């Protein structure tokens, strides 16, 4: 698996097979990147469950915050990592332990050893990317802001 470049098909399949996201490092502060991503993914129909020991028991965007991944009571498809590259190692192991289908590390977060362990356990891994940016890029919304989506197609996009 080449983690320097992901194909659009790989990202589409991964996002398309995801309904529930556990967001580790979710912030309750509305102007932090994790809050932006959580709100956006919720609007796109994903359920996002925040994980953050400092906010445990509180609510972010209508969802109860859990201290650790293993505390999340519902099945999780994707674990989205808003922590640094080192911390991403242990979080990836927890993601494997709870039976997640994928681990997604945010921009600036990369842990190749953890990615290899996850892939050996059958999980898909994306590193150094943002699911909000990739989802909006693949669905035409990023283009609205003047961004290069790198998507060329003469097919009509579904609204």
């Amino acid at each position, binding site marked *: 698996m080449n983690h320097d470049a992901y*194909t659009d098909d790989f990202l589409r399949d991964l996002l398309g097979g995801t309904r529930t996201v556990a967001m580790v490092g979710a912030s309750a502060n509305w102007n932090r990147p994790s809050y*932006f991503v959580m709100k956006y993914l919720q609007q796109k129909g994903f359920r996002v469950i925040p994980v953050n020991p400092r906010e445990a028991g509180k609510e972010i965007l209508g969802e109860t915050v859990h201290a650790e991944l293993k505390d999340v009571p519902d099945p999780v498809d994707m674990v989205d990592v808003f922590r640094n590259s080192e911390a991403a190692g242990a979080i990836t192991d927890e993601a494997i332990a709870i039976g997640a289908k994928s681990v997604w590390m945010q921009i600036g977060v990369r842990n190749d050893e953890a990615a290899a362990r996850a892939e050996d356990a059958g999980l898909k891994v994306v590193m150094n990317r943002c699911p909000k940016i990739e989802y909006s890029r693949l669905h035409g919304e990023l283009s609205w802001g003047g*961004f290069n989506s790198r998507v*060329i197609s003469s*097919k009509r996009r579904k609204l």
Partner: protein
Amino acid sequence: MADDQAPGFDTLAVHAGGAPDPATGARQTPIYQTTSFVFDDADHAAALFNLQQPGFIYSRLTNPTVSVLEERIAALEGGVGATATASGHAAQILALFPLMSPGAEVIASKKLYGGSLNQMGHSYRKFGWNAVFVEPEAPANFRRAVTDKTRAIFIENLANPGGVIVDVEAVADIAHEAGVPLIVDSTMATPYLSKPIDWGADIVVHSTTKFLSGNGSAVGGVVVDGARFDWLTHRDKYPSLAQPAPEYHGLTFAETFGELAYTVYGHAVGLRDLGASQSPMNAWITLQGIETLGLRMQRHCDNALTVARFLESHPQVAWVSYAGLESSPFQAQARKYMPAGAGSVFTFGVTGGYDMGIKVVEGVELFSHLANIGDTRSLIIHPASTTHRQLTEEQLVAAGAGPDVIRLSIGIETVDDIIADLDRALTAAA
């Protein structure tokens, strides 16, 4: 398209950003001639105003037709994003706006288009921005001008009108050693001839009025971000991008938007507050032009080289400054940076000085005497008596626009007709 094949230049020129309209299936990009866009509800409006969700609010900020143009040019330049503006001059201000503050300096090439020299040398001072001009032929001149107030280096890769090609790669290295971004005005080259981001530039600006639009129909500009410059490692220098923005409740653009930050700022603050947005109609006209950019630019360059060679052997011509000629000191740079051609704008000197220059521009019939470049039509101007007349004698010569200089922008007409028209006018003026 298939993931394993990067689209070629001409495919991007026709398709990038221009998928069929999702609402109607319209294949050609619709002209969204509207000022405003409805909100679904108050929460949707709040998410849009907080920059949490992509979407349209008001056409001063973003517009669905204009965003197609932005994406297309970003794709052609190999950039991450782009901000379209009302004109090329607006693009220059918008490019610098996130970087500058009162007292800050931009190091600029002395060989910029005369209008840019005026804008930077005079009007920028009203913002407290100081332009420091250096001769661009020796890249080390830029290094010598760096101070702790420098916030950007600004050059034209192919200078208008002097036929000077700047060593973009060397200047980019100097900019990055100094911890500032390199901004390149690539209007004369267009991405068909050269992509400055590939040579290390951070930001590219265009007057889209010229070759990109191509037909002399629509005034416009664009700022493209390559997103290689890390604002957060220079947090003190670039507070607009790398420190909390009070107007957005403490949001830090470079943290929240990562590599999108500069372009988000360009719309959400730059266009919002400076207001120099491109109209949907102009964006649409420019998109029509870009579809044929590759075909036109090659013809422009081929015609220009043929005309330059003809002039070089003409008795009423003292010299020709075209980087595509064997006689040009910039031919090696041209081969490196613009192998497909050295553009279609160049200057030559008449043997009879200022008065003869005026006679020639008045004597042509096919050429249009006007102040523009990059039209399908061949254009002619005598800079000293028109575009550059606000400059001092010293600035005129420095800008390659001395009293004997005529600037041509060679069009895509039949080249024999272009040559015949010039020959007639030169002979009559002798």
